[in-house]
């Protein structure tokens, strides 16, 4: 009975730092600057300007998730095969970026993609060899933000996929071969269906942070390229309209809850293993 007491520090922590802020956000979103109840904050959000930014955020997050999946699945599948040399090193290479601060990594991309940065000057030099004189700009556009997002979130796709694929019972694959499945059939009928919980948690773990990001878009996208996270940040830090910012945060939270609900339908079978 009294074991409950051990959870007290955690409960206190959650109440102060999770529950209370959510309640505050809820209160702010439903009031105006004077503190009176209003739905104006949500009405204001329906402006096409904001809706477009939201749609762009969702679109970019979806694209980023898809690219991560397409890169990570074959890699995780390859790494999960037991007879690979230097497997540990390869896995380490995928995980090492996660050890470094997220901001640092994004700043690194900033310097690489600057107009006199390493990558940009290399690309321009190659292009000039082919007679293209116009200098390309790799920074402050859609592609740069997408690049930054994929780079940052790829490990989050990689890990659950690798976990589920490498935990997969070898004998299940052998059973399929034994029953007449060639390599393609083994993959489509057994390996892929059994890896779906990993796919689901990978998608969740990439989509969630991707749809809410604002640092990547600000650093690599510049002032013109805004995502939904940037809008919320702007309301709180620059415009000072906490009520509107809270309303937008709430919209985002609902969006995340819905997408989590969808993914859980695939991920509820055991073996998803977030990390």
């Amino acid at each position, binding site marked *: 009975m009294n074991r409950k007491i051990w959870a007290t520090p955690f409960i206190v922590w959650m109440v102060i730092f999770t529950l209370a802020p959510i309640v505050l956000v809820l209160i702010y979103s439903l009031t105006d600057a004077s503190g009176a109840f209003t739905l104006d904050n949500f009405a204001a959000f329906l402006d096409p300007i904001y809706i477009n930014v939201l749609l762009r955020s969702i679109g970019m997050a979806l694209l980023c998730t898809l690219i991560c999946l397409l890169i990570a699945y074959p890699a995780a599948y390859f790494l999960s095969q037991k007879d690979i040399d230097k497997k540990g090193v390869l896995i380490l290479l995928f995980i090492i970026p996660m050890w470094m601060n997220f901001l640092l990594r994004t700043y690194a991309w900033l310097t690489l993609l600057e107009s006199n940065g390493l990558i940009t000057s290399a690309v321009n030099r190659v292009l000039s060899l082919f007679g293209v004189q116009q200098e390309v700009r790799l920074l402050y556009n859609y592609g740069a933000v997408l690049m930054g997002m994929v780079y940052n979130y790829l490990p989050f796709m990689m890990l659950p996929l690798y976990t589920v694929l490498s935990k997969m*019972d070898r*004998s*299940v694959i*052998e*059973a*399929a*071969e*034994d*029953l*007449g*499945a*060639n390599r393609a*059939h083994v993959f489509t*009928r*057994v390996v892929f*269906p*059994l890896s*779906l919980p990993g796919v689901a948690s990978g998608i969740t773990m990439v989509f969630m942070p991707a749809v809410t990001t604002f640092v990547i878009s600000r650093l690599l996208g510049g002032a013109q390229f805004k995502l939904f996270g940037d809008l919320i940040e702007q309301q709180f830090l620059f415009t000072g309209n906490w009520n509107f910012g809270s309303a937008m945060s709430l919209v985002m939270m609902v969006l995340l809850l819905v997408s989590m609900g969808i993914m859980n339908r695939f991920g509820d*079978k055991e073996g998803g293993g977030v990390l």
Partner: protein
Amino acid sequence: MSVVESTHLIDLMGVSKTFDGETEALKPINLYIRKKEFITLLGPSGCGKTTTLRLIAGFETPTTGRILFEGKDITGVPPYKRRVNTVFQKYALFTHLNVYENIAFGLRLKKRPQAEVDRKVTELLHLVGLDGFGKRTVDRLSGGQQQRVAIARALANEPEVLLLDEPLGALDLKLRKEMQVELKNMQQRLGITFIYVTHDQEEALSMSDTIVVMKDGFIQQIGTPTDVYNEPKNAFVADFIGESNIMRGTMLRDELVEFEGRPFPCVDKGFGENAPVDVVIRPEDVKLTEPEEGQVAGVVQSVVFKGVHYEMMIRTDAFTWMVHSTQCRQVGQRVGLSVIPFDIHIMRRSVTPVEREG
């Protein structure tokens, strides 16, 4: 067991397997398996029995040697093209499919019409006693039921040979006994070859037409259960199959062996004179007598009631004998022991690889 046909279905010719260039799981062996035979590969873990099974299934390729199926070389043929199917140790069912689709897996790959799949799956569910279980998810089934699904799934492709890798290992004793009988019946009814891997000697003795005893990657003995039990080829087999008293002895001459510091008449010959041998005596073959009437005398160390008999440990000057008897003696009591010549089994000390005659 006259159903076993004499034609060779599978031949292993000088087949060996070395893992990662160093671990010799299987030394070169020669073995043939006949049609409709229930053959058991028996041995302790690491003896090479599972490796042999996996080589036949095609999951491993032999390091040396060839594997023939009905006389045709199948050494390099991948598993999905072999006419054998496997029941895995931990069943390896497809958890994303229900019972019906697990069993239908092989038929679907062959693109059989739905009506045929339906008929076949219903038939197999009946065969393994799981009528009406088709819609269940496999992870909700008990161990015994999962085992049955695994068997039905493997039989769906109508294999010539069913390979079973310790299939009853995870079941409790009672269920294991039931399944032993069922498997044996199934094998006879279907009229196909079963190759069965186990470390359980009792299981091997009660189900098999032929037992292949293995140790350290070598075949120690091949024979019928009666042969292997009554005429073990060496001390290892004697010890592994049932319980035995194994003593060091010296073959003085034909039909006379010395151990326990005295000569015993026996029936073996051809070992030469004064040859070092292992003497094997089954606990149930030792007769208890009055101390002065026995060939040797000893003191009872312990008595354990085993249901049908008493298991007694009896200490003599040179050895502690295990004796199974329906008569009970008291701990500390002095008793005599005697063994008739026929029950004294003499074995060479050295272990040599074995070939199957015929």
